[in-house]
């Protein structure tokens, strides 16, 4: 097994990365899907082993090309990157278990080989961003992820032609974001002469007073915020999530923006340093209000949506607001809350989107008016949606409660008026969540079905993965020691690193 462990950081990325070209050659409906699922599961297995290894023995470094950093590119598996890799590959595998019939209904079978190749590329891109220890390599893998996600989103055009414009809008905004990151990395290189993240971090204190370094911080934070769909850069996300094929939405909702949250944490805590980011620079004053506006306004906007996927997408922007607040608090508890919420929200939101996907599979619509009485027509699917909705609100025994609890603790730790204000804000946002979830519950259980509406529940091949996500989420809502333990370890590692 030691052989596996030495290569594990690169294997977790290489498996999907080299699997993608092979997948592009496969034909038919079953083989591409099966192949992709196996590769994703392998990547998940490697990430899991890596997390246990790193958690017990400390960070692992891998020198690509055999060149020591900073000359070569380094992969660094530390508690944070391993945890996020586990989330990404886990969500990907879970979504794939569900994907076969769902995607066959949405994308023509002659193109499934290429479709799943793009899926694997998106997975590989995200894994690469997470594990790399090189600032420019982040950009390269971010582009692999972005380009493949534009394609995957555009594949929703068979159901709704707006998928094309959504993909184009995301392409333009995403490219601007990535270019901002490129400019930021350029300034860091200009001032330090290196691209290795650890190396830049070591030198950052000596250059932090210069204007180019501050410009680097500015462009990196804004660039990542665009990719993260942080308020007010979120406009691309509701469109992209609404019109993409259902499994693509479910996959990205659990992973894509989470990778950006990871990047934000990585740059702020590892490179810029806590003291500089929150002491010298006013990042708290900047990120905190944005996070608060995000979770308040977007929860409110979600209430008024009549497209179920769009509703969930706005709810996602709101949840990203919570994560931003956790980061902006600049405390170990806040960071733990953010990292834990990456994990919890990924599972819950993916489960919810899969559930919506099942409703679409049967009824052919995601608009609320067509889903009236869905509770009687599709009892198992609807019930899973309700349970996921409870987790969004943050009801006790759900994972949503756990991460909000941590965030509440972090907020109250401040002990000042802002802290109490934030707590009240979180409460209001949760109330909004109650309203938008209740709207669906009311519609599903207390409204009559439209005439001639198709009835009958989704097939088991869809129901089982949905319930897998819902049950796993409840497991982590009750038994928190594992998830919260890893999140705390990652937060401690980031805050403790000199």
């Amino acid at each position, binding site marked *: 097994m030691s052989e596996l462990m030495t290569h594990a950081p690169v294997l977790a990325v290489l498996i999907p990365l080299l699997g993608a070209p092979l997948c592009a050659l496969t034909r038919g409906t079953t083989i591409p899907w099966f192949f992709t699922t196996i590769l994703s599961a392998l990547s998940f297995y490697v990430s899991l082993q890596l997390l246990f290894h790193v958690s017990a023995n400390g960070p692992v470094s891998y020198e690509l090309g055999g060149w020591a950093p900073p000359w070569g590119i380094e992969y660094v598996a530390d508690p944070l990157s391993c945890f996020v890799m586990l989330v990404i590959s886990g969500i990907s595998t879970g979504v794939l278990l569900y994907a076969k019939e769902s995607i066959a209904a949405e994308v023509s079978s002659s193109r499934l080989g290429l479709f799943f190749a793009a899926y694997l590329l998106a997975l590989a891109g995200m894994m690469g961003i997470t594990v790399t220890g090189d600032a*420019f390599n982040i*950009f*390269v893998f971010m*582009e692999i992820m972005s*380009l493949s996600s*534009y*394609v995957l989103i*555009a594949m929703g*055009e068979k159901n709704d*032609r*707006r998928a*094309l*414009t959504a*993909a*184009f809008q995301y*392409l*333009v905004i995403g*490219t*601007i974001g990535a*270019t901002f990151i*490129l*400019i930021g990395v*350029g300034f860091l*290189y*200009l001032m330090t002469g290196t*691209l290795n993240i650890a190396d830049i971090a070591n030198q950052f204190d000596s250059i932090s007073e210069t204007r180019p370094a501050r410009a680097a911080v500015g462009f990196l934070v804004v660039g990542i915020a665009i990719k993260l769909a942080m308020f007010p850069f979120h406009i691309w996300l509701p469109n992209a999530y609404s019109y993409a094929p259902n499994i693509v939405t479910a996959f990205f909702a659990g992973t894509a923006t989470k990778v950006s949250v990871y990047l934000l944490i990585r740059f702020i805590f590892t490179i810029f340093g806590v003291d500089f980011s929150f002491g010298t620079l006013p990042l708290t004053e900047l990120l905190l209000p944005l996070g608060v506006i995000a979770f308040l306004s977007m929860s409110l906007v979600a209430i008024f949506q009549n497209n179920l996927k769009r509703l969930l997408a706005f709810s996602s922007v709101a949840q990203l607001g919570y994560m931003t607040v956790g980061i902006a608090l600049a405390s170990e508890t806040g960071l733990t809350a953010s990292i834990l919420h990456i994990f919890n929200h990924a599972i819950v939101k993916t489960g919810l989107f899969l559930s919506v996907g099942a409703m679409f599979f049967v009824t052919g619509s995601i608009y609320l008016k067509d889903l009236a009485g869905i509770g009687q027509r599709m009892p198992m699917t609807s019930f899973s949606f309700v349970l996921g909705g409870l987790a969004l609100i943050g009801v006790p025994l759900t994972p949503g409660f756990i991460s909000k609890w941590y965030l509440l603790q972090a907020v109250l730790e401040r002990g000042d008026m802002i802290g109490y204000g934030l707590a009240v804000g979180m409460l209001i946002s949760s109330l909004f969540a109650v309203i938008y979830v209740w709207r669906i519950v009311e519609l599903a259980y207390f409204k009559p079905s439209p005439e001639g509406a198709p009835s009958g529940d989704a097939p088991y091949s869809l129901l089982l993965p949905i319930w897998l996500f819902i049950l796993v989420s409840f497991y982590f809502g009750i038994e928190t020691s594992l998830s919260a333990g890893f999140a705390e370890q990652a937060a401690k590692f980031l805050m403790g690193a000199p």
Partner: protein
Amino acid sequence: MFFDHFNYWVFVILLMIGLYTVISRSNLVKKMIGLSMFQIAVFLFYITIGKVEGGTAPILLDKPDVVYSNPLPHVLILTAIVVGVATTALGLSLIARIKETFGTIDEEEILEQEDKS
């Protein structure tokens, strides 16, 4: 003094023109053209970082005391150029499809159609 940062300023101006083109124009092809310019500007930024006055291209010569410009930014930008053309290709193929399904490539007209449906 003026020429100390001249290249950087040209980079900034190009970047601004590119960004302005992307945001202000409603024709999708024009937006892509703006995006290309936006990316090209960043190439200039990186390549300028690598320049050494009196230096030569980083190809080893059999002479002593040759000053070479820094090869690393060149490598990075080679990658960035590839990324740029990849983005352009995807964006343009999306535009071609948008034209086929919406009958227009003007953002405002597309939005009107989307609002109706």
